[in-house]
Each structure stands twice: as structure tokens, then as C-alpha cells.
């Protein structure tokens, strides 16, 4: 193919190499590009398939959802959704929302100044501090569950949403500090110095100089913390019972060892996933900017 191109172009010997390589780069990208696109589609579909399957199953009757081989074209039904909404899921959903929103706000309020002190005006031995934050994530949650339970029992904090809010805040704080620190490191020192020279106060500098630059970072950190809190099951299952139970705990209640449950579990899972999806879509623009911030440096 390159030979044909060379003959057709009939360029001078000096430009031959350039023409050949030009022909090669023209010929190859479409083929490899198509292959890559195809691969991306296949991988994308593989990732999306369980979600599609969940959506489809949620609209089937329990009997059709349980057949083997699966009945893809079975008639659609809202039975699963009726069961879910008929079982009064609102307290659990509101508990999840309370725990996730409040813990995310607390995390941001605490993580932002910490990240500022670790990046823009770094404290002494700031790397040790960062490692300390990271080290708190090294202990698996399950290893700490017994002391957390016993403490909550003695302090009368079992089945209390504030105990979950506190735990979710501590659970997400190191991640948020690490994320925000890397975003704050993007703020140029020149901008801060210029603001200082112009007589801007610290709070004004933070509000008008730093915040706009790191807003995408804050959005992505907030979303990550919200998702982690919203989906958390282990702590919620052990530490709550009838009053403060969150939606992941409520979801597990649809599974039974005697009878069919796939359609209603899929319907319930879909509804419970919606707030996270909504938050993700709402923060999409900022999120993409935020996640690619460190990458382009």
C-alpha cells in the first residue's frame, strides 16, 4: 500500500521518506482507530451489561426473572417496583441521604483547611502528615468493628444516625484530604502572591482566588465521599437496627432463602442507585475537569 502511495504521489527523493511515513500514518489510524473503538465499545458494553441486565430484570415478574435460561423477552411488569415502594422504603432512603450529605459537608469543612495547610502553606513534615492520613485507611473496617460496636453500646449510640455520620466523616476524611491537597497544589503561587500584594484577606483569597480554581476538585471529592457514604453497608448493618438503618441495609432485606426475589431486588437496587447517578450527572462537568486536573500537569 505504501508503494502505491509513493508511486502515486511522485514526490522528490528528499521528501520520499516523509511521504511514505505520511502515507503510513494515514493508512494505519483508521484501521487501528476502528479496532480501538471496537474494543472500547466491547469493554464499555461489558461494564454496562450488568446494569442493563438489572434494569431489564427489574421490569420482569418474579417468575420470569428466575428462569434459566433467562427470558429476555418476557412481558414487562412493575411488580418489583410496586413491592419496593409498597414496603415503605422512605425512612431508609432519608437516613442514607442524611448520613451521606451531612458527612460529606463535614468532610469538606475539615478537609479543605487541612489540605490548604498541606499544600499552599505546607506545615513542617507535611509528607509525614499525609502518610499519617493514608495510614488510617490501612486497617480494614472489619478489624475495628468490635470496638466501634462496644463503644456505641456503652455510649448509647447504637441505632443512631449521628454515630454513622461521625464514622462516615472519619472514613472519608483521609481520601478528601489527599484529593483536595493534589487539587490545591495546582493553584499557582504567583496568583496568591498577587492577591496578597493587592491586599486581599485570607478569606477573600480563598473565596475568590483559590475556590474557583479548585472547584472541580471539591466537586469530585464531594461526589466520591457521597458515593462511599451512600453505598456503605458493613458499618450500617452492624451499628443500626430499626430506626437509623440506611438503604443498603434495607436492600438486603429483600433477599430470601424461601421464594423468589430477583425482580424486586433489582427494582430496589435501581431506585437506591438513582441519587448517586443524579449526583454524578449534576457534577459531571466539574467531575471531568477535576479528575483530569492532575493528569495534564
Amino acid at each position: 500500500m505504501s508503494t502505491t502511495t509513493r508511486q502515486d504521489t511522485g514526490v522528490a527523493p528528499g521528501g520520499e521518506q516523509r511521504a511514505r511515513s505520511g502515507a503510513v500514518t494515514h493508512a494505519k489510524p483508521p484501521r487501528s482507530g476502528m479496532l480501538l473503538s471496537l474494543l472500547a465499545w466491547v469493554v464499555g458494553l461489558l461494564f454496562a451489561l450488568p446494569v442493563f441486565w438489572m434494569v431489564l430484570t427489574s421490569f420482569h415478574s418474579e417468575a420470569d426473572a428466575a428462569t434459566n435460561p433467562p427470558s429476555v423477552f418476557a412481558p414487562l411488569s412493575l411488580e418489583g417496583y410496586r413491592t419496593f415502594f409498597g414496603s415503605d422504603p422512605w425512612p431508609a432512603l432519608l437516613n442514607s441521604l442524611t448520613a451521606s450529605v451531612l458527612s460529606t459537608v463535614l468532610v469538606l469543612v475539615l478537609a479543605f483547611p487541612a489540605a490548604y495547610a498541606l499544600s499552599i502553606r505546607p506545615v513542617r513534615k507535611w509528607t509525614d502528615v499525609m502518610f499519617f492520613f493514608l495510614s488510617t485507611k490501612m486497617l480494614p473496617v472489619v478489624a475495628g468493628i468490635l470496638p466501634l460496636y462496644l463503644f456505641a453500646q456503652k455510649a448509647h449510640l447504637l441505632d443512631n444516625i449521628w454515630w454513622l455520620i461521625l464514622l462516615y466523616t472519619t472514613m472519608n476524611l483521609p481520601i478528601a484530604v489527599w484529593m483536595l491537597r493534589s487539587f490545591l497544589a495546582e493553584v499557582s503561587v504567583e496568583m496568591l502572591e498577587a492577591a496578597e500584594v493587592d491586599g486581599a484577606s485570607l478569606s477573600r483569597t480563598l473565596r475568590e482566588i483559590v475556590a474557583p480554581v479548585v472547584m472541580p476538585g471539591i466537586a469530585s471529592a464531594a461526589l466520591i465521599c457521597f458515593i462511599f457514604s451512600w453505598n456503605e453497608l458493613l458499618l450500617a448493618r452492624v451499628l443500626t437496627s430499626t430506626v437509623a438503618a440506611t438503604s443498603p441495609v434495607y436492600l438486603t432485606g429483600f433477599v430470601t432463602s424461601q421464594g423468589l426475589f430477583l425482580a424486586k431486588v433489582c427494582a430496589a437496587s435501581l431506585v437506591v442507585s438513582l441519587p448517586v447517578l443524579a449526583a454524578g450527572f449534576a457534577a459531571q462537568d466539574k467531575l471531568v475537569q477535576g479528575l483530569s486536573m492532575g493528569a495534564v500537569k
Partner: protein
Amino acid sequence: MATTTGLSVAVALGLSACAGWGGGGIGGGGPNSINVLMVNNPQMVDLQKLTAEHFTKETGISVNFTVLPENDVRDKISQEFTSQSGQYDIASLSNFEIPIYAKAGWVAPMDGFIAKDTGFDQADILKPMTTSLSSEGKIYGEPFYGESSFLMYRKDVLESKGLTMPAHPTWQQVADIAAKVDGAKPGMAGICLRGQPGWGQLFAPLTTVVNTFGGTWFEKDWTPKVNAPEFTEATSFYVDLVRKHGEKGAPQAGFTECLNNLAQGNVAMWYDATSAAGSLEAQDSPVKGKLGYVAAPVVKTKSSGWLYAWAWSIQQASTKKDNAWKFISWASGKDYEKLVGQELGWSKVPAGKRASTYENPDYLKVAQSFAVPTKEAIESADPENPGVQPRPAIGIQFVDIPEFPSLGTQVSQDVSAAIAGKTSVKDALDKGQQLADDVAQRYQERGQ
């Protein structure tokens, strides 16, 4: 950013106002309410539906339920009751846990409440149920529904081969019939027996077979007998039967798989829980009306059916025991069975616990074919003396000690491997004997 944060804070504060600063969460609570932790079985879900409209309306006591799958609920109950945190007033426990929890002082005795509540009619509860939910003469649990085990078979298939099923068959007779009906229809195996590992799966039916062959896990003085000739003979018989005439995929088959096999015509017989009959005789079942039910097969004992119940127990740490009893008295009472029959249909009645259920013509109309065999199976079950020798602990298809789930599950994995042909019964039971010996030593040292 200010707007977004402001909005988030406003939403959060609004939500927290709903939660109540000292309160804990969005759900209910209060002095005239009780908390119930229960397994997510269909009978419990029906109970949940009927509670507000009937129990709460009559008594003014609101009930907050936590419903979890079986394994999760066992974990949660164990965590809750061992710590006596008092979060739940009532939990659904089986007759495996109740005697253990009673000895540990985690559940409250109910005799005082029963004596005062004449309308409850404790004498109507089937005697083996009361026995299996008691410890040292005191009652610690009231059954919600119960089951035993029996043999289910396809009447039409046996008839086509000119065979008759005895009312009280021996295991040898069952094995002979299984051989004759194996392949009676294309793809049909002789019998379905559980092969899935698990103390509550494979070892539920197998322990009843061991009992009737004269075997036992432990003798009265805790001497382990897992590789004794009787235990070995029973296990070899079970493994041979399922390998020669059993269902496809036997090493993975549990209750659900066998239920599907019998319903779909893949097997001619099935030895399992009496509670399976309700699904097999349901309106949409392909085998409705085609099945016969006879007593659990025997060898050396008069009966061999197991006994299992989901029952209510009150946590010792509960501060609302009176209200808790009112709920139990309602849920396990005669009137509740009538309520379910009238509101949801008689096939959904949580049966297997009261003698009066089996005298109710409305119930008998829908449960005609299996009601009497079920009642007879439960009544003939003897959880204190299920075999030919005295036992150190109560239990038919299990040994009622906290170590049994682990021991039973480990040994069942090797027996399941023997069904799959990967090991021999002898090797499986020799390993089991070592494991049982470790457990036995602890009890022998304690002199229990």
C-alpha cells in the same frame, strides 16, 4: 460554590430536623413500640403486612421490623443477643439457637406470660415443638411455623411401574423403589437427596438417616462416633443411593434444587422438609395432585423425621417484655392463623405448630394431601431421643451445641466430595471423627 454549600447545609439540617438531634434516625420508635428482628421468609413478610392494620390497631403497640436474609439474620441476632444490647425486643430464632441462648441467659423465659395469657392455649402447641423450644423445663420460644421431614413421591410414576409405597417405608424399600423408577420417564432420576455442603443442607437429611441406622455424632458422654460402623453404613447408603439413582448435579443440590427437580418432573421421589408440600401443591405447580406423602423412611427407629421451627424469643435485656409477649401471643395465636386464611388464603397459614390447625376444615380443604402426614411427622419427632442411644444434647438433624454449624459444615464438605466421587466415605468420616474429637474434648473436660 457558596450557593451549593448553602443548599447542602440547608438540606442536611432539614433532614437532621427529621432525624431528631438526640433521636437516632428517621424510622419509628417511642415507648409504646417494640423492635422485632426476623428472617425474610414469606410467612414473616405476610406478618409484616398484617401487623399495623390488626395488632397495632387493637393494642396501640407499634412494631418496627428489621427483616434480613437467613444467614444475615443469624449473624445479627448472634451479635445482638450475645452483647445484650437491647436494641430488639423480639427475634425470630430456630429451635437450634433457643436452647443454647436459654442456657446462656440471653433469652427470657415465657412461662409467666403463658400462665397469665389463657387465650394463647399453650396445650394446643404440638408437644415436640414445645420440647425443642424449652430448656431445663422452661419455655423460651413460641413457634411461628414448624416443619418435619417426610418422603414425597410421584404416585403416577410408581403406579405406572406397578409399585406401591408403604405408609412407613424402610430405607431399603425406598432404595429398591428408586432403582425401579430411575429412568421411568426420559431424564427422570429415582430420588432427590441433598448433596450441597452445609450443616443445614446435606446434614439435615443425612443426620436423620444416621439416627435411624443406629448412628450418632456423640454418645451421652461426648464420645465422638463419626467413623463408627453405624454412621459409616448410613453415610455409605446415602452416598451410594444418590450416586446410583439420585439427581443430576447432586453435590450442589440443596432444598431449592430438589424442589425444582420434583416440580419439573426430573425426579420421582424426594426426602425433605414437610414445608415443601405447600409449594408443590400450589395452584401453579405442574405436579399438583400427583404426589403422595409418607413418613420419613426408617431402619432401626420407629420414626426418623426431623424437627425445625422458626420461633419468637424475647431478649433478656428488653425493657418492654410485656408488649413483646402481646405481640408473640398474637403472631403465634390461633386467631392469627384464621386472619391469614381469610385475608391472604389458607395455603399461606403459618402451620406446623398447633393441633387446632389440623382440625380446621378450611385449612384441610387446601392442604388435604399433606396436612395429616405433616402433623404425624411433627408429632412423632422426638428431639430428646432421636436415635437408638441416649444423647448429650437435644436435636434430631443437629447436635444443639454452638460448635455444630462449623463441625457439620466441615464434615459435609467431605461427604459432598464423596457424592461427587472425589473422596471415599471412609476418608471423609475419618477426618470428621478428628474434628468431632476436638469438639468432644472441650465438653469432656468441662464434665458436661
